């Protein structure tokens, strides 16, 4: 059985795998956006740049101090998360009482500013990042690098872990309740403003974490975030803004759909997600998992 639906099986599996890899990043990134939007009602347009910062911090750690990938996986999200903490504490916090568009504009501006500074300091050319896991597994029809399996596995564990934390734990219950009625939760003695700050920092750290994971696969360049974030926003629109589990499933699902499109209709691969988004907006504007108004 060398072909399936007239397509070589090796190509099919290869593209599904690439789809799952891309889907891992769509999933992690749209998850962070969903958390931020769900709790802070902020559309975080800086998310792509924060992802790029994660990759950049990993590259700088390696290039300057020789600190390897595994340490970077720990350090970079903390660094990026702290930058998110500062953005919330000094800027976003003062915009919550205004129309949501102000916070959105702030994150757009922050994104452009940070991207510009990175271009100024590091140039626009991409930097390669060495693969920390050489080798792979031969599945007879295709060869799968270990690192790709690692990315898919970690993305699954981190996304589902985050969902479990928010949906099933006591601290998650505070987040869900604060999402519905922050003032009432404050009268219970819960410091909701601090919780919002930590939530934003966590979701931003998640973007930084994704960036480190992406560094060995894609090149570390100032544009890597803005290239990804457009697709991720389409994923969020399709999945439904603010739904955690929805964004995870939609992220992986659309990655695979994109991969399969590359096999069956390569010309459509770069637009298929946007076509799905347009159809979704026409049929079900609140998205697959969003609450219908």
């Amino acid at each position: 059985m060398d072909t399936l639906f007239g397509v070589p099986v090796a190509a099919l599996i290869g593209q599904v795998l690439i789809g799952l890899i891309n889907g891992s990043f769509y999933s992690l990134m749209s998850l962070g956006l969903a958390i931020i939007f769900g709790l802070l009602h902020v559309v975080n347009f800086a998310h792509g740049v924060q992802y790029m910062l994660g990759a950049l911090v990993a590259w700088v750690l390696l290039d300057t101090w020789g600190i390897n990938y595994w340490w970077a996986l720990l350090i970079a999200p903390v660094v990026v998360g702290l930058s998110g903490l500062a953005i919330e504490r000094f800027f976003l916090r003062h915009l919550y009482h205004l129309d949501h568009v102000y916070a959105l504009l702030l994150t757009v501006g922050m994104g452009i500013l940070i991207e510009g500074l990175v271009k100024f300091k590091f140039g626009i050319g991409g930097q390669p990042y060495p693969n920390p896991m050489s080798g792979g597994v031969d599945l007879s029809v295709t060869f799968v690098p270990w690192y790709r399996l690692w990315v898919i596995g970690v993305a699954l564990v981190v996304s589902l872990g985050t969902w479990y934390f928010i949906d099933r734990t006591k601290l998650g219950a505070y987040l869900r309740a604060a999402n519905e009625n922050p003032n009432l939760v404050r009268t219970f003695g819960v410091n909701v403003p601090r919780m919002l700050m930590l939530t934003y920092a966590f979701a931003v750290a998640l973007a930084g974490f994704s960036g480190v994971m992406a560094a060995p696969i894609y090149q570390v360049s100032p544009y890597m975030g803005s290239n990804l974030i457009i697709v991720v926003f389409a994923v969020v629109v399709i999945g439904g803004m603010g739904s955690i589990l929805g964004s995870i499933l939609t992220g992986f699902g659309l990655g695979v759909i994109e991969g399969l499109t590359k096999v069956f209709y390569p010309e459509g691969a770069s637009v298929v997600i946007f076509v799905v988004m347009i159809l979704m907006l026409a049929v079900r504007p609140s998205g697959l998992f969003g609450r219908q108004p």
Partner: protein
Amino acid sequence: MTESASTMVLQLQHLSGHYGETQALHDISLEVREGEIVCLLGRNGAGKTTTLRAIVGLLARCQGKIEIHGQSTIGLPPEAIAHLGVAYCPEERGIFASLSTEENLLLPPVLKPGGMTVEEIYELFPNLLARRSSQGTKLSGGEQQMLAIARILRTGAKLLLLDECTEGLAPVIVEKIGQVIRLLRERGFTVLMVEQNFRFASRLADRFYVIEEGTVVDSFRQDEITPNLERIERLLGL
């Protein structure tokens, strides 16, 4: 001050406050002492709910004096005021749709010792035990009201602010809530409640304040109701 029944728990003096541009409270002065049930009466829009919201710190712009156990709370955020031992049950009940009944019950953190245990609460409200895994907002109106009261009993807060907790409920449920509030007094809770149902409140509360256009226009004790019934009913528009 001694630990007697006359210990001052809550004191408002010349409190005024705004909702956006409109002044909602003009000059509210009132006192609540330990173990008392005090009721705010008045027509719709008189400022009763706003007074409770000011006490828990949800009214952004307040002038005057609010003291809880002798500590001034003007300008404190709601989470800090909660730690002084005040708990608030809002008129709209505020049951969270994304939480189960039990998650709603266990949501408010225990801030001080001396609150009721979960077992005691389930004994008092057996319906909540039976429906503990249901989505909070799937409960009946009466059950949601019970849940809204029940969840602030665990926290160790001894001053409870109850806003219109009988509104729209069947007489048998109203009766049950009356029993619960009497039991709370026996357990050492102090209650400041807002009530439209004067018949219900008149049998329950020790003292009453009548609020009109954001200010206190009258106050009386329970034993002063009968001799002054005509005047009180005129004030309340009954």
